[in-house]
């Protein structure tokens, strides 16, 4: 199978998954108590306006009809209109997405680097103090509630030491001149605005370290056990028997071979990262989709809640496709 065909098949395979999540989300939210129309119009709205609005939103139709309307709307990229802001939900989500992406991306980089270096180092020093340290680290950090850890970092580096900003994505007026991607750290570099780049990175440090470190606990454990498995395999012994240096054995053979399972699990853990992102975003006032979702829940803004969750579903699906493609690229066996 060519890589292209493989990618196409993989994308087709993820459609049912998205459909299932869409269905669950739809029916879960439809049972929520609280009339969204009333929430939108306020208690003093006259009944005829309420009915008109219900009609306009299609809430007076049978639920199964509503379901299919909803699916057909999503298929054409219509996520509905927020009852809170009267803006198209998709537009709001697209506006918030770069922030979430930036946070998760940098957290992932931190988590993956800690995971790979610490995990493979521990596996390589199996049973030695470094290994025990890695295990203690992963178990300990895993039990940190994300928001608790975030607050502690805020306290230490923001409030006490005044080193780093504790909330938001940028200092006032420190926004890149031209927005290409919406990811400030990248846009600033594209514009050549170094001061803005520094500002964006300063804002990124605490939230992405919070999320990255907490997630890294899982990665350390996972990399350790997979590299351990790879290190005990015959081809590693064979490479050693050929006179290959230990460092090369670790990186070229063990780590590279451990990569497909690691990547697959990392792809799965990406879901955990997103969940953590919601807590991190709320802790650091990071203006992303997680913050958006939590705010809108208190307003019973149905289309927005639904939209945010659906958006997450697409994001997760996209990442798992990406992971599979990278795997296929690393490991030729998958491609064929």
């Amino acid at each position, binding site marked *: 199978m060519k890589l292209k065909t493989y990618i196409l098949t993989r994308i087709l395979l993820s459609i049912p998954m998205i459909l299932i999540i869409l269905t669950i989300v739809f029916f879960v939210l439809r049972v929520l108590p609280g009339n969204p129309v009333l929430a939108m119009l306020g208690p003093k709205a006259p009944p005829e306006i309420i009915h008109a609005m219900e009609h306009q939103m299609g809430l007076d139709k049978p639920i199964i009809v509503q379901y299919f309307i909803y699916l057909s709307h999503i298929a054409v990229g219509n996520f509905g209109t927020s009852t809170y802001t009267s803006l198209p939900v998709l537009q709001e989500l697209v506006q918030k997405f770069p922030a979430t992406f930036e946070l998760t991306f940098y957290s992932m980089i931190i988590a993956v680097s800690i995971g790979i270096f610490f995990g493979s180092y521990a596996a390589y020093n199996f049973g030695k103090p470094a290994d025990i340290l890695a295990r203690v680290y992963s178990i300990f950090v895993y039990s940190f509630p994300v928001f608790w850890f975030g607050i502690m970092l805020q306290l230490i580096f923001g409030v006490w030491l005044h080193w780093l900003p504790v909330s938001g994505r940028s200092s006032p007026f420190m926004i890149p001149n031209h927005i290409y991607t919406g990811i400030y750290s990248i846009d600033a570099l594209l514009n050549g605005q170094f001061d803005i780049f520094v500002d964006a990175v300063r804002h990124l440090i605490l939230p992405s370290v919070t999320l990255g470190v907490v997630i890294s606990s899982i990665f350390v454990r996972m990399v350790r056990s997979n590299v351990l498995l790879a290190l005990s395999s*015959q*081809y590693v*012994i*064979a490479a050693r028997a*050929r006179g290959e240096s230990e460092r090369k054995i670790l990186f070229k*053979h063990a780590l590279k071979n451990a990569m497909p399972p690691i990547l697959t699990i990392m792809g799965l853990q990406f879901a955990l990262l997103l969940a953590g992102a919601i807590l991190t975003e709320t802790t650091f006032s990071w203006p992303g989709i997680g913050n958006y979702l939590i705010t809108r829940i208190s307003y019973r803004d149905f289309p927005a809640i639904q939209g945010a969750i659906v958006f997450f579903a697409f994001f997760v699906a996209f990442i798992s496709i990406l992971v599979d493609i990278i795997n296929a690229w690393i*490991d030729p*066996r998958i491609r064929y």
Partner: protein
Amino acid sequence: MDTNIEIKNLSIEYRMRNGTVHAVRDADFSVDKKETLSIVGESGCGKSTTGHAILKLLPSNARATGSIIYNGKNILTMSNNEIRQIRGKHISIVFQDPMTSLDPIMRVKDHFFELIKAHDSKVNEQEMIEIASCALEASGVSAKRLNNYPFEFSGGMRQRVMIALAIALQPSVIVADEPTTSLDVVVQEQIMEVLKNLKRTKDMSIILITHDLGIVAEVADKVAVMYAGEIVEYADIYNLYKNPLHPYTQLLLKSVPNIKIGDMELHNIPGSLPDLKNIPQGCRFRDRCPMVKDICKKETPPIIDKDGRKVRCWLYG
């Protein structure tokens, strides 16, 4: 003849969660230049462990004592870097399972490149391809397949690649650790042909680890018979087959009706290996030995020199 590698008093233990396994005890043997030594025994008797010890490839929970002298130096006390320079260039090994011995995500040529670069970083790619092609052709694989991945090869072909890798830098010793066990009969024959050719054409000693007495008869010059971690008999091939001394060797040879047939194995002897975690006093073979005496249960037999042959049995003491 010059001695190429000499093993003295080699003992190896594995420390496991539930006790210590005494895998090899007091092994003594040597291999001369151009000579083929065969280590035979049932599976689990410590012969592979001995083979791996020669390249210092034992797992981290293993502890080896004694000495393995190569070029006047003890391999067991070498630093990682010293042994690294010997592996693949001076002593190489062919493993039992060719299916897992090649890195699945590396092309065949990359395996050769890795080997060559590990020992001489100055070689350019053209030279490396030449060396690799040469070695592959010598083991019966077309040089055209250098660009293939391991999973595109059959088991037999992979073993040929492994052999090619082992001989590429013209080492003086090759350890062949049950090179044919996991292959089917026809392929076994082919691989043995390759080994026999090597023995003829290249200037190297081979340590052949096997439980196949047929193969032993075909290629070995000397034989060390191992049982439960001990070498029970050590002799040249002619004497061993003509007049086996140790009861175990005798049983082995009896269980093979025709040594010319290559696939006879040792499972015909009643009883099983003792538990290597807690070995009782006395001879390790006594429970299966037809000629067992009282002393066998009380005292461990020493190595006895008989007519220039070595045997570990009270029958001769």
